């Protein structure tokens, strides 16, 4: 067992973990952060995407011990004071989710895409989301949602999330 200190969605945690524990399992099972989900075992689907120090990572591809001393933001930490993150709102507005299973990872990745490039083309959005699978939406409305969030981000002050990834 290894001792780790991690800040998740603004709360500090100190835990003993088995060295082989994946970050996603630590989040789900130890911390009860079940908003982040697991969709595959080969790092292909992106359902588990969270932010580690403000950058998106697939949390099934990171060991919990690697998060020691770092900050993690999950889908659960995105809304601030009951106010949805602009990307969450855009997903709702554009009907960018159906079953919603891919959605936490998709939203976290979409925010990362805009952090890298606040005004992406459709092509850049599509490539930016390539590591996240959705079986329901056909991506059409997800792309639309990211475009909406990007457009909002360019109107002054409308979007905290297009810059910092929420709760960071």
């Amino acid at each position, binding site marked *: 067992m290894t001792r780790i200190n991690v800040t998740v969605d603004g709360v500090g945690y100190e835990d003993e973990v088995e060295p082989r524990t994946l970050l996603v399992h630590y989040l789900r099972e130890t911390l009860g952060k079940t908003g982040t989900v697991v969709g595959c075992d080969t790092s292909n*689907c992106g*359902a588990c995407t969270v932010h580690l120090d403000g950058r998106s990572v697939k949390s099934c591809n990171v060991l919990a011990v690697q998060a020691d001393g770092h900050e993690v933001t999950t889908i659960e930490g995105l809304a601030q004071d009951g106010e949805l993150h602009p990307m*969450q709102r855009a997903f709702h507005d554009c009907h960018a*989710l159906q*079953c919603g299973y891919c959605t936490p990872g998709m939203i976290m990745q979409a925010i990362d895409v805009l952090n890298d490039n606040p005004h992406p083309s459709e092509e850049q959005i599509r490539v930016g*989301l390539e590591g996240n699978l*959705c*079986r*329901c939406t056909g991506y059409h*409305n997800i792309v639309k949602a990211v475009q909406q969030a990007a457009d909002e981000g360019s109107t002054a002050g409308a979007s905290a999330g297009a810059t910092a990834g929420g709760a960071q």
Partner: protein
Amino acid sequence: MTAVEDRPKTEIGAARKRKEDQRLITGRTKWTDNIQLPGMRHLAMVRSPFAHATITGIDTSAAKSSPGVLAVLTGEDVKDIQGGMANAWPITEDQKAPVHPAIAVDHVAFAGEIVAVVVARSAAAARDAAELVDVDYDELPPVLDLKEAAKDAVLAHPSLGTNKSAFWQFDSAGAGTGGPVDEAIEKARADGIVIEREYRQQRLIPAFMEPRSVVCDPTGEQLTIWTATQVPHFVRIFTALVLGIPESKIRVIAPDVGGGFGGKLQHTPEEVIAVLAARHTGKPVKYTETRSESLLSGHHGRDQWQKLTLAATKDGTVTGLKVDLLADMGAYLGLVTSGIPVLGAFMFNAIYKFPAYQFNCTNLFTNKTWTDAYRGAGRPEATYAIERLMDELAAEVGVDPLEIREKNWIKHEEFPFTTVAGMTYDSGNYEAATARARELFDYDGLRREQQERRDRKDPVQLGLGVSTFTEMCGLAPSRVLGALRYAAGGWEHATVRMLPTGKVEVVTGTSPHGQGHETVWSQIIADKLGVPFEDVEVLHGDTQIANRGLDTYGSRSLVVGGQALVMAADRVIEKAKPHAAHLLEASVDDIEFSGGQFKVKGTDKGKAMAEVVWAAFSSHDLPEGLEPTLDADATYDPVDFSFPHGTHLCAMEVDTETGQVSMRKYVCVDDIGNIMNPLIVEGQVHGGLVQGIAQALWEEAVYDDQGTLVSGSFVDYTLPTAADTISFVTDNTVSPSTTNDLGAKGVGEAGCIASTPAVVNAVVDALRPMGINDIQMPCTPERVWKAIRSAGSDQADATTGDAQPHFDAGAPNQAPPDPSSSASAEGADQ
């Protein structure tokens, strides 16, 4: 009641954003795998690595002494209590099926079949111990290829004595719905056109994003099962039937469910095993599959060979269609495995007026994962076949593919129309949908561009693909299901509960997993009862709350479940009228209800629904004979199917030097009857399109010659990503259904059914001048490239050459393929 300024005039038809979203976008979700119960144990499965073997011994001692392990169960341990997994659709009286134990006892018939189960304190401990279970197998030869299976040389289940499960036929001459097909073909051979083709429906995997998960809690009086399923009511009934537990002792809950697409229309061995393990240990247990396990052992879809003969006059008027299918059941019959191809039987004639039709289907066992429902279930196969054939006919006659369709389709003034397959199409307007699609697509402009590219020998050629599809939705009238030997009915149930404070609870027997029922059912009730959208709560997916229901699949929820809801709401109004009359001191006959108000005819005296509800609740002053409740329920058995249709047009660019294909444009105009919520409709269409396009271009479950699934992870089973796909142009025409009060037709499967042939037709259209008339799905760059390379050489087209020998008069359906053509590149992965 809150007044909302921008409230739409009617909720039905408004692009309401979904109620479901709030919890899903904030991670406040209830997936089965999220559940933690006190003392909960975890399961890991030991699965057979062999496609076909006998089990000669299992040593569980090392696993049992592994830390944290409570029990290891083998088939031998549970063989007297586990029963056999059920098949609910014996399509013929003499259908053959092997016993299907949840845990294999002495014989495994596909790689991935469960042979032992470890129960341990944590999921990790269970998995560690599963590695220590030592199973001895004697390998048996597997039968993997469908056409090989038809020969019965190698048997998937030696004890069955044959690989044939059933043969099912529909013949229009026999049924009295049309003429004899063989005569039509003979005549066409003499002085018309005969198109003969053999198409392959590759094996697909539903690949819902949430892996299946099940939790079983044996503590308390009722056994509670949470499961990631589309069909909680089925799971309850079949848990009772398979394990012999009284149904009243079982509660099944489908919490948030992450997609299904037919893949969660099942009662699974894992669900049975969870119950066995929970009862064995007396503790709650959880099992969540890995993605690899999901791809390996969750049921697959499609997997058919289709031999087709289309007869037509020289001008392209179709005179008959004969269909001979070989359908791969895989190793066992799941819940509706055997009936899936039969669901296509009524759809091969599609939107056309064929005078003669025959459908023959042979269901065969192989040593592969069993197949069952996958989005569209039987109808995509049928639509693919006929829409590909109509393009071939157009090419033969030398006219545009749209022209040949128009020549043969049912005209809008001919509805309702009874087809050669005996179905009565409720309504439709193929002309209108096609005209709109043509316009949005710029069909003529793209045809011109295609010609230009051909003329200048552009290495990147353009192909235009057409698919004018229809499907049968709203499964299903119980009498029809009975006639087809299906075990259950097709009705649906709804309850409307009027709460004292004016809020409304709706209980539905449907079980949504992404479709947005909570939103749409609220819209319907808001309009019917005049209550705000926000005040309606939709409850579902728990057999203790929604005690009656037949769940969600087959585009049935709105057209059947929605109609039940409308009827229940009407009953609430009828029940409320005497209450309102009493409050208003008027006669019941003078009470009218609209916009949430009970009014006395010809006066402005009225009472709001909420006031009437409160009066009934307090019941201080009820006249004699009135019940103190306005709650009502309804069970609706559909009178008939509904038949949505649409025109889909696809433009594909094909690089003739590399075989690379890319989608340039996709337009679809769907007529799904009245639209409840355009936002949700569009979403259903988009998602369906990409699943259908994925069958055309990317996806295939591939086995090696040992029977190992080589596309067993998301690395190899290539779901499309955002970068692989484009944005679509969608629109609707509206021919209201005449089979339900909402006028709705069902949209869940439309995109998936229509898009596959549109895409392949486009790819073939691009290459037709090179003499290419088929490319087997998925049309990977390699296959396209090979087709181009071999085009023009004397090597016959693979699938066409293959088809011909079978159509000799009197030749059996299961005739072996011509060996020279089975060496085609396209067949190599079977």
